[in-house]
């Protein structure tokens, strides 16, 4: 499908004519091609096309939002009428606003069309490679897709931003089996602008497949202890996503964020520097336009342990009196530490190497607990038995302050670049 920029202008004009004081239109056209592996064979090729628009109208300080994927003139006319009604019945709020206008900009990254033959080869090669090098691996899910997204954001303040991005993504969920025994599943995702590199050479695929094969025969821990935990980059990514949720609009507006008054304050080990880099060349799955229609910029969220920014949108910033963030978060890059991974492991007397965390969403106060999956016991500086039925609990805030080291080695996922992280003081309990 093709994106028609005139559609956005005409829609904004129609919204203003219909009574909108401020109007916004986000047009998005996306084509996707996807290979899926089932029971070890590439057995589905799925192609989808979609075109959608999200309209926002503000009338007398009241906001309405409508999203639909019909882009024909009749359905757009209906959508314009409907979103005006949504705004009219809403509640006035001085915080309702749209982005200020600026220079028109177009951002382009990645290829426009998929290389379907290369995608097929990469995934077929991965299946062959797995048979040879990870013969016990079974793919519960293996998907290789290419999406081409064309996005246009315009509003009545003159915002005119367009982004075209072509992106390859491979998602694998796998377990390993030997006779009647099988490992816990693990998964990984990698994004790239090309399909040239073999999948096992990307991100953590090869390491996770190897480790998964070592996790077939697990042992449970006995008893409970307070110990060290080394987060793998894969596991760290999920935790960073959770941590930055505390910085977003909802917890800040409702006042429930544990970091509501922490700008400039130390919230973590001084060696931790966390960036959000959605526009960096090193991040394939980035973005150049925020959800509010401002040009995204990279930012530093935690600088040497100090919180530098919340992740407020326009509404959240106006509501709380805080500063609007220059991006929507994600695309995490954590600066490498000065400790070799091997030395980091050697420094642990008793703890675990945490491959995946299957846990409840942390409480507003930062408490969390869950199961350590795809993980190994570390004793006397050496990686020991793979674990099962091992629970982990702690508090996000305390955990960040208790970080001991970050590794020199990092993993590039195409959506973030992360090291191993060593922290202390988490409760580890067995069955």
């Amino acid at each position, binding site marked *: 499908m093709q994106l028609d920029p005139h559609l956005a202008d005409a829609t904004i004009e129609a919204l203003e004519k219909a009574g909108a004081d401020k109007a916004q239109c986000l047009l998005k056209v996306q084509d996707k091609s996807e290979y899926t592996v089932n029971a070890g064979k590439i057995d589905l090729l*799925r192609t989808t096309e979609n075109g959608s628009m999200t309209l926002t109208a503000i009338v007398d300080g009241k906001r309405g939002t*409508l999203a639909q994927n019909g882009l024909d003139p009749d359905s757009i006319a209906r959508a314009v009428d409907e979103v005006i009604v949504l705004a009219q019945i809403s509640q006035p709020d001085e915080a309702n606003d749209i982005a200020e206008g600026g220079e028109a900009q177009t951002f382009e990254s990645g290829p426009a069309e998929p290389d379907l033959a290369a995608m097929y080869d990469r995934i077929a090669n991965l299946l062959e490679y797995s048979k040879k090098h990870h013969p016990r691996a079974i*793919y519960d*899910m293996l998907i290789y897709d290419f999406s081409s997204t064309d996005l246009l954001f315009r509003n009545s303040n003159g915002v005119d931003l367009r982004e075209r991005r072509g992106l390859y993504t491979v998602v694998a969920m796998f377990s390993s089996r030997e006779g009647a025994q099988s490992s816990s599943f693990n998964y990984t995702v990698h994004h790239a602008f090309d399909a040239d590199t073999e999948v096992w050479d990307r991100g953590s695929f090869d390491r996770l497949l190897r480790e998964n094969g070592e996790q077939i025969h697990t042992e449970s821990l006995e008893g409970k202890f307070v110990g060290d935990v080394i987060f793998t980059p894969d596991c760290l990514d999920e935790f960073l996503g959770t941590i930055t949720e505390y910085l977003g609009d909802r917890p800040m507006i409702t006042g*429930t964020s544990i970091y509501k008054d922490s700008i400039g304050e130390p919230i973590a080990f001084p060696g931790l520097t966390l960036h959000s880099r959605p526009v960096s060349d090193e991040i394939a799955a980035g973005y150049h336009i925020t959800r509010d229609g401002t040009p995204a910029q990279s930012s530093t969220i935690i600088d040497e342990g100090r919180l530098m920014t919340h992740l407020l949108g326009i509404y959240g910033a106006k509501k709380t009196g805080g500063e609007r963030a220059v991006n929507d978060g994600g695309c995490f890059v954590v600066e490498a530490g000065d400790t070799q991974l091997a030395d980091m492991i050697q420094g642990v007397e008793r703890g675990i190497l945490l491959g995946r965390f299957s846990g409840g*969403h942390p409480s507003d106060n930062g408490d969390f607990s869950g*199961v350590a999956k795809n993980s190994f016991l570390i004793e006397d500086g050496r990686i020991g038995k793979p674990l099962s039925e091992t629970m982990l609990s702690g508090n996000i805030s305390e955990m960040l302050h208790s970080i001991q080291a970050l590794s020199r080695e990092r993993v590039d996922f195409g959506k973030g670049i992360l090291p191993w992280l060593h922290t202390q003081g988490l409760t580890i*309990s067995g069955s």
Partner: protein
Amino acid sequence: MKPAELRSQSHLFDDYTELRVQENRNIGLTMQNGDLSRNARSVQSGVSARVARAGYWGFCSTPEVDSPAMERVVDRASTNAKILAGRSQRAGLHLPSTAGKGDHDLQTEHERRSQKELIDFLRAIDDHILANYPKLSSRVLALNNLDMQKTLLTSEGAEAFSMTPRSLLYLILTIEKDGQPIDLMEAYGGLGQFEDRFGDPSELFEDIARQYEHLENKASGIYAEAGPKTCILDAELAGILAHEAIGHTTEADFVMGGSVAGQFMDKEVASPLVTLVDFAHSALGETCPVPVHVDDEGTEALDCTIIDKGVLRHYMHNKESAGHFESAPTGNARAFLFSDEPLIRMRNTAILPGKSKLEEMIASVEDGYYLMKPGNGQADTTSEFMFAVTQGYEIKNGKLGRGLRNTTISGVAFDLLKTVSMLSDDMVWTGSGMCGKKQPIPVGMGGPAIKCTVSLGGK
């Protein structure tokens, strides 16, 4: 669109083909501390075709819903299957033939309320909370309505229409305790449009009072002691146990992928007290939270008794897995959006009730926990599971004690089910579940309270 309107497209079908027209309509309202921060509607609609040819599947979708678009998606889906067949030879798929028929429109018969009236409904509840619970530090109300409408025509003669609505009100209350926020979320509603699920706002006030009381008990409560404990899992937790811990391991695609349940067919996997069923559309004389009459492959949906009196008896199937296992398809193939292919998904998964009273179950525990509300959950192909628990109480000498802060329970499901020693004689369904497996999908979960041994995460 009704199936009769699609019938004229059947001439497009050369191979095994499913043609589906689908529209998902959403309403989303969010009120944060009295401010309406979200007032939105959305529609996602389109047509898709899935074709099986020479042992491969091709799929294509487009948002346009007219004859040329239908011709295009069928043609492209067929081409996609051919592309795969051109790269590798494979035996043809053995797909059992089914031709389910149905017309199940659950649109409300009440007069529709406007979105303004829905906002007023939220406002009335928010005003009530503000006036009656001054100790709360924050309150968030979120109303989400989803109408999922599907029309299906297959090359095997299946013709089905369904409109399955779901209306949910999420209420998150937060209280400060020693400078720390403690929250408790409750979901109200379920199957049906807003008018079927909600009446006057005051009808919810009693439930809200109960939610607040549990929140206060949680705020002044304790952390669970880490490790294995005898617990009473209330109905909602039994439901998520049935879904996450057992259900996923018995989805036939996971079985083919190496799930531990692959070795357990016709073996004892649970206490003889346990019977676990994935209901298609009705159970024990009532309509389930997510009724499915004909699935998205055109198979008539039937109940699937997964565990019968402790013995594993069936997996849940789509056509391909049924062909693989030489079993009958169970009608579990479901897609979330028009652009999604059908996957094996649960529908309404429940442990059947027993004969005990909840009170006598609690009285039988000397030192343990009564765990009431689940948060999120995850299960493994090994049947190892984890659920967040957001509401519960300690049990000391057969009596309920202090409230619990958030905790997590985990275990190996097939081991846990062997420890089940009592089941309550009632059954509660929850209709707010959204399961994730490549695509999200609404699911129902149900069960009685169960007494078992389970590991808790704590401090």
